[in-house]
């Protein structure tokens, strides 16, 4: 490999093995990765904590665990504390006996991986660091504007870049850990001013506020990895990043990232860079995509339904992929409570799981809504619904969700928030 990147003497020494073979390979990986994109230098990671995408001890991922063990054995540890995606199982989530056994087999490396994570250095005790929404204040891994990050998890990266104004590339699992270990990352893409400019102008011309997950899906599938600048959404979300706006953008961004490969978006008059720079963020040759009610309906109608029996009665509903915010849990509780009252019913029609981080759940448990939700029969869990659905026995279940990310990766069927609310509160035929 020819090194074209300008390295400091310390970085060159690392590459040449001054801190052992594993660290030299970490360094070589980061250099080669950066050089693909013309990176000319490394820049320091300034965010306080890292975030890892790998939270699950999937037996197939043995080579990753072996690699991590080599790093641990050679003392190649992160220079910052870490948060991590959600855990793959929780006994509170409905699952039959055989399915539980299968989950234990599939995730048979979970125990040993949790031990590795502890050695790598988790931010919070117990399960409090395991969530895809680590940027929420309750969890405490909230980067500042301008921070350089070494994160993975597509929904967290797009949120940190877009809503918080931090700077992070769409790193793969393993690469993000390498950046946390080295303390620097190659300078390219979303770390640069030029890389944060918009390739697309999205003109929103719907007659009402679009479902966040559907809008994100439509944009993601159109722009793929490019940067969209969305006009017209501030009409519905306002011009301040309050909790309802950030919750909407969390779900919107996750859909752009999973249905496409978006790592950064700008919302006119709302997100930090769009507020400061306005249309200067838009590239001269930017393309335009107009979104109407009809466009969104067409996108939704084209989602494949891969249930064996498309008319099957749903057996489970997941809400919270990415993990729910506190406000979102409260809002959904009120929606279900009002809906059931109208129908003269007390419990939800379909077994339902709300997923959130344990710190958010703890806060929720202090609110009056917590008891109301429990009475309606809804389970609250810290699980990763995607990992739950990866169990082959769960895949055959007719599961519904309002998450476009969960739809993309599993057999779960997507419905809008309004449709889900109706399905959960009305009698199921």
């Amino acid at each position, binding site marked *: 490999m020819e090194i074209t990147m300008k390295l400091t003497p310390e970085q060159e020494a690392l590459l040449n093995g001054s801190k052992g073979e594993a660290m030299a*390979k970490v360094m*070589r*990986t980061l250099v*080669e*990765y950066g050089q*693909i*994109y013309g990176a000319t230098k490394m820049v320091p990671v300034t965010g306080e904590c890292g975030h890892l*995408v*790998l939270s699950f001890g*999937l*037996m*197939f*991922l*043995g*080579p*990753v665990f072996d*690699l991590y063990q080599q790093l641990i054995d050679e003392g190649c540890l992160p220079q910052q504390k870490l948060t991590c995606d959600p855990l793959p199982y929780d006994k509170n989530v409905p699952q039959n006996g055989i399915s539980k056994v299968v989950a234990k087999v*599939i995730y048979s490396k979970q125990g040993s991986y949790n031990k590795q994570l502890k050695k790598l250095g988790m931010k919070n005790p117990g399960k409090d660091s395991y969530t895809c929404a680590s940027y929420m204040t309750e969890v405490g891994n909230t980067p500042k504007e301008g921070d350089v990050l070494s994160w*993975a*998890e*597509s929904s967290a*990266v797009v949120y940190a870049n877009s809503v918080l104004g931090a700077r992070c*590339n*769409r*790193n*793969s*699992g*393993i*690469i*993000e850990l390498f950046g946390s270990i080295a303390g620097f990352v190659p300078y390219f*893409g979303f770390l640069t001013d030029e890389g944060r400019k918009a390739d697309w102008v999205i003109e929103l011309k719907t007659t009402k506020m679009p479902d966040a997950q559907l809008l994100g899906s439509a944009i993601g599938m159109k722009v*793929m*990895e490019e940067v969209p600048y969305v006009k017209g959404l501030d009409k519905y979300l306002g011009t301040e990043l309050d909790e309802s706006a950030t919750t909407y953008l969390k779900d919107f961004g996750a859909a752009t*990232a*999973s*249905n*496409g*490969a978006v790592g950064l978006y700008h919302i006119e008059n709302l997100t930090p860079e769009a507020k400061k720079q306005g249309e200067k963020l838009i590239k001269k040759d930017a393309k335009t995509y107009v979104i109407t009610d009809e466009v969104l309906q067409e996108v939704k109608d084209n*989602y*494949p339904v*891969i249930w064996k029996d498309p008319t099957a009665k749903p057996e489970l509903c997941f809400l919270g992929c990415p993990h729910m915010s506190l406000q979102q849990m409260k809002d959904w509780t009120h929606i279900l409570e009002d809906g059931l009252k109208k129908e003269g019913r007390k419990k939800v029609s379909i077994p339902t799981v709300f997923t959130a981080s344990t710190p958010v759940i703890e806060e929720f448990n202090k609110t009056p809504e917590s008891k109301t939700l429990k009475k309606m029969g809804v389970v609250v869990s810290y699980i990763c619904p995607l990992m739950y659905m*990866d169990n*082959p026995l769960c895949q055959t279940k007719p599961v519904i969700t309002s998450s476009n990310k969960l739809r*993309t*990766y599993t*057999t779960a069927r997507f419905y809008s928030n309004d449709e889900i609310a109706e399905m959960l509160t009305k009698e199921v035929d």
Partner: protein
Amino acid sequence: MAKKNKGVKTFQGRAITPGECTAEAVVSHGGFNTLASMQMMSIQTKTKCVDQNNPDLYKKVLQGKALCLPQTIGSTTGGMFLYCAVKQGKNPACLLFSKEIDSLAAAGAVLSEVWAPESPMPVVDKLGDEFLDYVKDGDVITIHPDGSVDVAR
């Protein structure tokens, strides 16, 4: 620019991880979602695409094939999954990108090269839209170390 000679058309790309390889093409015209496509490989005898949103590849064998694609999309586990596939011999024989390689696939390529040199998986990008318009499932692909790619049918 592509060159054609007796049923073989040659495209020039950039070798991300240089190597030589001959394999049968499988083609995805849309973004290849690595997690959605390959998440079941641990329980499959041969890695097959299980991504319901990819009509080009759904249920087709990927292992040992020349995977032709614009780029990868979706979860940031992508590079990690590619690395594991390579380490366990469950990977496509090579990856051929029409566009510039995305950061997740790039990670998979580099991780495999640095940490699994015993199992080379050549990767070429920037082959151009014409490449993806031309190549069809079943074409025989030959990759050369300089990033040139022959497509024979």
